[in-house]
C-alpha cells in the first residue's frame, strides 16, 4: 500500500529539509496521505489507543521514577510518599497502575479483533508476530512493575514467577540465582527489576515502530477481509478519516480510563499489596493481576506428571511448558489457520468457534482467580485443553471443512452491500458486519 510518495514541499524551508532529512515526507506519507480501507470500524481504532497508552505509561512512569526508591526498606514507603506527599502523586500513580490495566484491555480487544477478522493471515504474518513480541514485552514490563511497590503481592508474585525458571532441567536453579542476584527475591532483585522496568517500555516502542512499518507495507486488513484492489474506490486518506475516527475512539476510551482511575482506582488491585513485603508470611491466596489470570490457570492446570514413555515431564515443568506454549502458539497462528478467507463475517463456523474461544479465555481468567482446589483444578485442565484445541485442532481443520460465504468483489462492493442477494444462501449476511461498530 506504500505507493510512491505524493509529498511536495511548498515552502523554501520544506524543500531544504526534504533534501536533507525527509521527516515531514515520512509523516505525510504515513499519517496523512496513507490510504486506509474505507470500511474500518471502531475496533480498528485500538491501535491508536494502545499507542497513546504506551506514551501515557512512559510519561507517568518517568515522573514516578523521580520519587520512587528501589530499596527493600524504602520502596514501600516511597510509594506511600508519592500517594500522600507528592503534589498530584496519588493521581499520577493511579493513572500509571490503572493505565497498565487499560493498556491490557485495549491490547486484548486489539488481539481479538485480529483473530476475528483474520488479520494474521498472509501477507501480514510478520506484522502479527511483531504484535506477539510486543505482547510478551508488555507482560514482562507489567510483571516487573508490579514488584516495585514491594508489598506482599509484589514479593510473592515475584517469588512464584521467578521460580518458574527453576523448572528448567539442569540449569534452572542457576538461572534463578542469576535472576535474583542472591539466594532469594531480595534487594538485588528489586534493584534490577526497577532498571529493567524502565528499559522495556522503550524496547516496546522500538518494536511498535517495526509493527507500524510492517502495517504500512501490507496495508490494513479490514472487516471484509478482502485486499484493497483500487486505491481510489476502496480507500480513504488517513487524515482526516482515520485520524478523526481514532480520536473519537480514544476520547471514549480515555473517559472510561479516567473514570476508573478516579473512582475505582483499587478495584483491579489486591488489598494485600498495601501490606509491606514479608518473606516469612505468604499471603493466603497469591493471584497475579487480572491480565495474567488465563495463563496462571493454565500453569496450575498441570498437576500430574506427563509420561511420554521415553521420559517423564514432571508436573511443575509441565505447567510451565503449557503456560509458555499458550503464548508461543500465537506466533504460529498464521500457519495453523488453513482457511483462505480472512474475515469471520464470511466464515459462519469460525464465527461460532471464535466466540467459544472468547468464552474459554474468560473462563480461564475466572479459574485463575480461584484457589487451587476441586472443582477448579479439573475445570482448569478442561479449559486448558479447549484453549489449545482452538489453535491446534479447530483452526487447521475448519479451513478444510467450512464452506465460507461468498466474498464481496471488493471493499467498495462490501461497503455498498452489492453482495446482498447475490446468492440466496448468503442473503442478508454479507452486508451486516460492516455496519457494526
Amino acid at each position: 500500500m506504500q505507493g510512491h510518495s505524493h509529498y511536495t514541499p511548498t515552502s523554501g524551508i520544506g524543500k531544504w529539509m526534504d533534501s536533507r532529512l525527509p521527516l515531514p515526507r515520512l509523516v505525510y506519507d504515513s499519517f496523512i496521505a496513507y490510504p486506509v480501507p474505507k470500511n474500518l470500524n471502531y475496533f480498528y481504532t485500538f491501535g491508536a489507543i494502545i499507542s497513546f497508552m504506551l506514551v501515557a505509561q512512559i510519561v507517568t512512569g518517568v515522573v514516578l521514577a523521580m520519587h520512587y526508591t528501589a530499596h527493600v526498606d524504602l520502596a514501600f514507603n516511597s510509594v506511600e510518599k508519592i500517594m500522600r506527599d507528592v503534589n498530584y502523586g496519588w493521581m499520577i500513580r493511579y493513572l500509571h497502575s490503572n493505565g497498565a490495566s487499560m493498556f491490557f484491555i485495549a491490547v486484548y480487544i486489539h488481539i481479538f479483533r485480529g483473530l476475528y477478522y483474520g488479520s494474521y493471515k498472509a501477507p501480514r504474518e510478520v506484522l502479527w508476530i511483531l504484535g506477539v513480541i510486543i505482547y510478551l514485552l508488555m507482560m514482562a514490563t507489567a510483571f516487573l512493575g508490579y514488584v516495585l511497590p514491594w508489598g506482599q503481592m509484589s514479593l510473592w508474585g515475584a517469588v512464584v514467577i521467578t521460580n518458574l525458571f527453576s523448572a528448567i532441567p539442569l540449569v534452572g536453579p542457576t538461572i534463578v540465582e542469576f535472576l535474583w542476584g542472591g539466594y532469594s527475591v531480595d534487594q538485588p532483585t528489586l534493584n534490577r527489576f526497577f532498571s529493567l522496568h524502565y528499559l522495556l517500555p522503550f524496547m516496546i516502542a522500538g518494536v511498535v515502530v517495526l509493527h507500524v512499518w510492517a502495517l504500512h507495507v501490507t496495508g490494513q486488513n479490514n472487516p471484509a477481509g478482502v485486499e484493497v484492489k483500487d486505491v481510489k474506490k476502496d480507500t480513504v486518506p488517513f487524515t482526516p478519516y482515520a485520524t478523526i475516527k481514532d480520536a473519537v475512539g480514544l476520547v471514549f476510551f480515555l473517559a472510561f480510563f479516567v473514570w476508573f482511575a478516579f473512582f475505582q482506582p483499587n478495584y483491579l488491585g489486591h488489598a494485600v499489596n498495601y501490606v509491606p513485603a514479608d518473606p516469612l508470611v505468604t499471603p493466603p491466596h497469591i493471584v497475579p493481576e487480572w491480565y495474567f489470570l488465563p495463563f496462571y490457570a493454565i500453569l496450575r492446570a498441570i498437576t500430574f506428571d506427563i509420561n511420554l514413555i521415553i521420559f517423564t515431564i514432571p508436573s511443575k515443568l509441565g505447567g510451565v511448558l503449557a503456560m509458555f506454549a499458550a503464548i508461543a502458539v500465537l506466533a504460529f497462528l498464521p500457519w495453523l489457520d488453513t482457511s483462505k478467507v480472512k474475515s469471520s463475517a464470511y466464515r459462519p463456523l469460525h464465527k461460532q468457534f471464535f466466540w467459544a474461544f472468547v468464552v474459554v479465555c474468560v473462563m480461564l481468567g475466572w479459574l485463575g482467580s480461584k484457589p487451587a482446589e476441586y472443582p477448579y483444578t479439573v475445570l482448569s485442565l478442561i479449559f486448558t485443553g479447549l484453549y489449545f484445541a482452538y489453535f491446534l485442532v479447530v483452526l487447521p481443520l475448519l479451513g478444510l471443512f467450512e464452506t465460507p460465504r461468498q466474498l464481496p468483489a471488493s471493499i467498495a462492493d462490501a461497503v455498498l452491500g452489492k453482495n446482498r442477494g447475490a446468492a440466496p444462501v448468503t442473503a442478508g449476511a454479507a452486508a451486516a458486519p460492516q455496519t457494526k461498530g
Partner: protein
Amino acid sequence: MASVQHAEGDRRDFLFLATGAAAAVGGAAAIWPFISQLAPDAGTIAAGAPIEIDLASIPAGGQIKILWRGKPYFVRNRTDAEIKAAQDVDVKTLRDPQPDAARVKEGHAKWLITAANCTHLGCVPLGNQGYYGGWFCPCHGSHFDTSGRIRKGPAPTNLPIPQYTFVSDSRIRITGAPGSAA
C-alpha cells in the same frame, strides 16, 4: 595485471579468519562480565554465612520459622504421633520416595529441619494443615506430611533438608542450602 591463483587459502584468507576468530572470542569475553554481574555479589555471599539456632524454646508439637539467606526454614519439634505417622508410610507409594529416617539426624528423630519454600513455586506452606497433618501450601494446593514429604498437589519433590549439624542436643548449625555440597 598478472594474478597468482592459489588453490588453497592465501595469506589474506588466513588474516580474515584469524581476525574473525579474535573478534568472536573478544566479543564473548566482553559479554561475560555483563552476565556475571547478575550473580550474587561478594556482600550477599558473605551475609549468607552459617547460623546457629537454639532449639530449647520450641515445645513438642511446635515449630519455628527462621530466615537464612533471605529464605525461611522450618524447625519442627515433632510429637511421637507425628513421628510414627511419618515412619509408617509405605515409602514406595510416595512421589519422591524417601524414608523418614533419611530426613532427620540419627538420634534426633523429633527434630525436622526443612526449607520452608514449597518445591512447586516457592510459597511458604502453612504448618499443621492439609490432609497429612504436616504442611499445606495455600498457593497451589500441595500437601506435605509430618516428614515434609510431598503427598498430594503440584509440588514435584519433598521439602528439601538443608545442610546442618547438631552442635549440642539443643542447638543446631545450618551450614548450607539444600542440595549444596556439605
